[in-house]
């Protein structure tokens, strides 16, 4: 049996083409061409719907394209305008930074707290998880419409409380420049944090229970357990979500558009709504492309920071 096996094996000195009965061309074809043919459909789709439009956006950002017909090449004029003269861009950018600061703190704090509480619950935990996750699966337009009414000074919670004699909350939260952006962020967070909580809860379930038992034997408090076991145990998940939330914060559009369209007086304008207005209302699609590319650049900077920290040895 061993001999017959050896006989079937090609001898080392024999040319490979003769060993498997294939010509070098066929071998190269199979190695280099066939895999590409399988990848070709998805590659074509990618070129058509992602790479092509991305490259065209770079080109259009250098033109005064209106969105219809052809545009005229104007060099870096759009970028000069963004950097030096467009106050609306500056304001929207600052609002995006405020949004970033809110979403890198509030939902993380709330969801980490809730996940660490739920991790201890044995009975009925699925109910809480489902209930808290449901807002995430609701369409943005529905969530925003519900909260528009709840925040209404005449129909909402504030008006109801005022009827009961508790005044001071029946204010138009979305109608005041001082509170519009934070109110939208609150609504968006209401829909988002449940998703974050479920992710953290899943990550927490991967932490060995012995670590908690050992900590308890050593007399650790709940806070110490959370700080020295839970957080380090789910750090990759936390950091990954910090990265994603940072990227999403520069792309925010839906809740702002539905609730205030950037108003009042530009107080809730973000880069996403500014791009939409420039492209589809002011017919400055070339300028909108330039703003869009700065958004991509900001997201790219966040990803670069993430990669840099990983290379420096951070466990993220």
């Amino acid at each position: 049996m061993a001999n017959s096996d050896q006989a079937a094996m090609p001898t080392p000195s024999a040319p490979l083409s003769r060993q498997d009965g294939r010509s070098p061309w066929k071998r190269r074809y199979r190695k280099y061409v066939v895999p590409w043919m399988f990848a070709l459909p998805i590659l074509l789709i990618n070129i058509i719907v992602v790479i092509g439009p991305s490259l065209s956006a770079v080109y259009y950002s250098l033109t005064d394209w209106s969105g219809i017909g052809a545009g005229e090449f104007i060099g870096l004029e759009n970028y000069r305008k963004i950097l030096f003269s467009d106050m609306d861009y500056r304001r929207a950018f600052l609002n995006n930074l405020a949004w970033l600061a809110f979403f890198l703190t509030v939902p993380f704090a709330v969801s980490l707290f809730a996940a660490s509480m739920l991790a201890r619950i044995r009975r009925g935990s699925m109910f809480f998880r489902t209930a808290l996750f449901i807002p995430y699966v609701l369409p943005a337009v529905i969530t925003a419409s519900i909260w528009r009414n709840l925040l209404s000074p005449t129909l909402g919670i504030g008006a109801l409380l005022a009827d009961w004699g508790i005044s001071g909350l029946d204010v138009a939260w979305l109608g005041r420049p001082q509170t519009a952006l934070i109110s939208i962020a609150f609504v968006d967070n209401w829909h988002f944090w449940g998703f974050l909580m479920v992710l953290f809860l899943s990550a927490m379930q991967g932490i060995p229970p012995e670590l908690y038992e050992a900590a308890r034997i050593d007399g650790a408090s709940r806070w110490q357990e959370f700080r020295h076991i839970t957080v380090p145990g789910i750090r990759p998940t936390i950091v990954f979500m910090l990265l994603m939330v940072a990227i999403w914060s520069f792309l925010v559009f839906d809740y702002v558009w539905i609730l205030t369209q950037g108003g009042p007086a530009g107080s809730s304008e973000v880069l996403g709504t500014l791009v939409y207005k420039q492209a589809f209302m002011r017919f400055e699609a070339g300028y909108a492309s330039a703003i869009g590319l700065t958004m991509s650049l900001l997201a790219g900077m966040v990803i670069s920071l993430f990669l840099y920290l990983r290379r420096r040895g951070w466990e993220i």
Partner: protein
Amino acid sequence: MRNATGKSLFLLVILSLVLAACAPAAAPALAGEAGAAEPIKLTHWIGVGTGGSEQAECTIANVVEPYNEMTEGVTVETVLQPNVWEAMRTAVAGGGGPDIVTTPGPSFVFEMAKSGQLLPLSDYAEQLGWADTFAPWALSLGLVEGELYSVPHELETLILYYNKTVFEENGWTPPATFDEMVALSQQIADAGIIPFAHTNGEWRAANEWFIGEFLNHVSGPDNVYLALTGQKPWTDPEFVEAIDLLTDMQLNGWFMGGLDRYYTGTDDERRVMLGDGVAAMTIEGTWALDNMSNYFGEAAGNNNEWDVIAVPSVTGEDIYDLGIGSTYSINAASPNPDAAAEFLTYYFSPESQATLLVECGVAPAPVTLTEEQLTGLDPRFAKAFAGLTQASDEGNYGYTTWTFWPPKSDVYIYEEIEKVWAGQITSEQYLQGLQDLFQEELEAGDIPPIPEREVSS
């Protein structure tokens, strides 16, 4: 291996065929080149907008289907589109789209025409006598570099709706001049009623309704005409006065009871307030005539009645600001432009437009409608449209911002005014910004066509 190669090649061939199938088909022969007996199909996308699908279906049943029945060899196929403009511009830009192209207004036609996406209509207008059908100024709105590319549809204007019962109970009479309206607003506010049920919570561009009204009715339409044609700057004192007056009224809380309420109220909410008598008046478009009755009377839980008048002007003259809700054109890629032009002739005939108004509540095109044709129409509708038609025929009209201002200036008008109301900039700074942007668009030739006007000295 041979099998594997064969399969790969087979897959490649299939993929090539699929891609080939995705390529645009060659355009069919023009109607004129085809045999006379060959049936023609025209495509027409109808938007499902504020009137809902009921209004669109009513249009099909009362105007399109009768046309299909009366013509031999030509069928108009309608498709209801919830977001018709976005779908239209994308399809037409890609060389497709329906034969009949509709846009939200003349300024949208401008870019499409310059890009060669629309068919010039001047020859059809001459052959088919469109100049006799439309109001004198109407066809000039569709001109791009001297060539006609669109015809206007849905003539609209802003009017003053008021709660007639509340007025009668308080002994108030509808204001005849702008000053009377301001004085009355103070009286109404003193009586604990909100003078105007105005919001922009659901439609932020609603700001421009009031800006346009104040510019035309305080500064006067002649001055607006001069500014629109570049003969006068927007920074002139009469425009500053209009914006100051609007700002004062807004900051007085006369619009909805406060600026923050103005920014957050919904359209339904403000109409309920008007119907219930919580508010006394509202300046809104003729598009609201059709459903205003839903907020009054027993069914709405009140016994109130409503009525309309022209928005008062400083001179006391009835001024109606002309607005165009949509335009109709022919797709440059249409294989049947002659048939499309014939359909437009039928569609814009006074008979069809009267049917659309009376049966479906669709605002008519700027064509002359006789009293007979408007039989059965609510007298308030008839009063508003009669006033509008008269103003349009006599050339004594104002200008709505969404029809006569170029797109960037238009967006500036309703976005930046909030900075004036927030105290971030002054009326002068606001108008200076408008002047700079308008001048830029004027020099670029992006101003929609402004019909000639005889300006009184």
